[in-house]
């Protein structure tokens, strides 16, 4: 008799219900299986109507973020064996509107990401003849950690400020802005600071720190935000005391 484990999955079918419900499935337990494997088993063999997002199944695409037993996780990285004896509760990520079952709408994050201009901005592009931009390993080191973000949005799902104040720009967007601010090739730190110093920018953060805890790629968005606050405050002081210097 093959060991099994119960999977309690949140279902939401807007055409037939107004609130989410739970449905329990009995899936085989294998010690090398992750929650994503179990969900795919459900979809293949038990209930083809279950909707969820996934892609690379190896922790680099950021598609499969969900809540496993109440904690935001990538389901491709959440081993069944870590949650035994079960039942294992699988729900959609918090603080995003649920479209269907485990699928959430991520438009809000996408818009916020664009707002921070996460690309290299230069006052003048170098002509091709001048060759490539060079960067020392130390210069790379200043922003590399923040560049590891896979946009999985687990940090948004963990941030109570985002839950309470949906207009908050959020951990990943700020971390990615900082990634470009610290990049020696970029020249738009001031421009981004103007955007992020607005009411729902960096100052909304109260350093709960949960975003860093749940990040699967060790981006440390909380650290990025606190560094950004210091940068923002220093810039504010400079513009107050030396207004001519900051034009």
């Amino acid at each position: 008799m093959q060991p099994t484990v119960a999977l309690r999955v949140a279902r939401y079918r807007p055409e037939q219900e107004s609130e989410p419900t739970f449905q329990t499935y009995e899936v085989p337990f294998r010690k090398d299986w992750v929650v994503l494997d179990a969900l795919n088993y459900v979809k293949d063999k038990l209930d083809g109507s279950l909707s969820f997002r996934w892609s690379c199944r190896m922790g680099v695409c950021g598609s499969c973020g969900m809540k496993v037993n109440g904690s935001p996780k990538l389901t491709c990285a959440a081993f069944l064996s870590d949650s035994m004896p079960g039942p294992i509760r699988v729900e959609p990520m918090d603080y995003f509107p649920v479209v269907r079952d485990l699928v959430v709408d991520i438009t809000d994050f996408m818009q916020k990401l664009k707002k921070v201009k996460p690309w290299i901005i230069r006052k003048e592009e170098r002509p091709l003849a001048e060759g490539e931009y060079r960067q020392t390993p130390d210069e790379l080191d200043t922003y590399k950690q923040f560049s590891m973000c896979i946009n999985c949005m687990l940090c948004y799902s963990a941030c109570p400020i985002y839950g309470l104040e949906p207009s908050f720009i959020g951990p990943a967007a700020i971390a990615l802005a900082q990634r470009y601010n610290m990049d020696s090739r970029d020249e738009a730190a001031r421009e981004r600071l103007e955007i992020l110093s607005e009411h729902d920018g960096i100052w909304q953060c109260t350093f709960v720190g949960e975003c860093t805890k749940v990040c699967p790629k060790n981006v440390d968005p909380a650290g990025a935000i606190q560094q950004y606050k210091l940068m923002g405050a220093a810039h504010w002081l400079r513009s107050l005391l030396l207004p001519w210097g900051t034009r």
Partner: protein
Amino acid sequence: MSAGVHHTPYHPKWYRRRVSVWWWLQNRTYTGFVLRELTSVFVAFFALVYLWQLRALAQGPEAYAHFLALLKTPLFLVLDGVAFLFILFHSITWFNLAPKAVVVRLKGKRVPDWVVVGLNYAAWLVLSGAVAFIVLRGG
């Protein structure tokens, strides 16, 4: 989480759950966070106690003696004891989080977090010792 269906405008079928007022009881980190934030109340409490002491000092020896007597009452002793614990909690969480905000780079390499934390604790010890010395020597 409380019930309370709250649909997103223009997408009446998308489900949005309202965040409960008890969100901070949901996990240990959130509760710890709120306790950490509440340490500020005890910080303000003591700042006001010192302000009161300063005022008593300015008013004269009787007022000052009266203030010192007030500090000996059980109510204040209990409040002070509780406040002391919360203020310690503030100090510890503050120093432990310092390296997140203050990133020091020496010759291109980031100074390790434990050095920043250690320097903070060292400063704490040195300053506390200096204060104790000055206050007690003046007596």
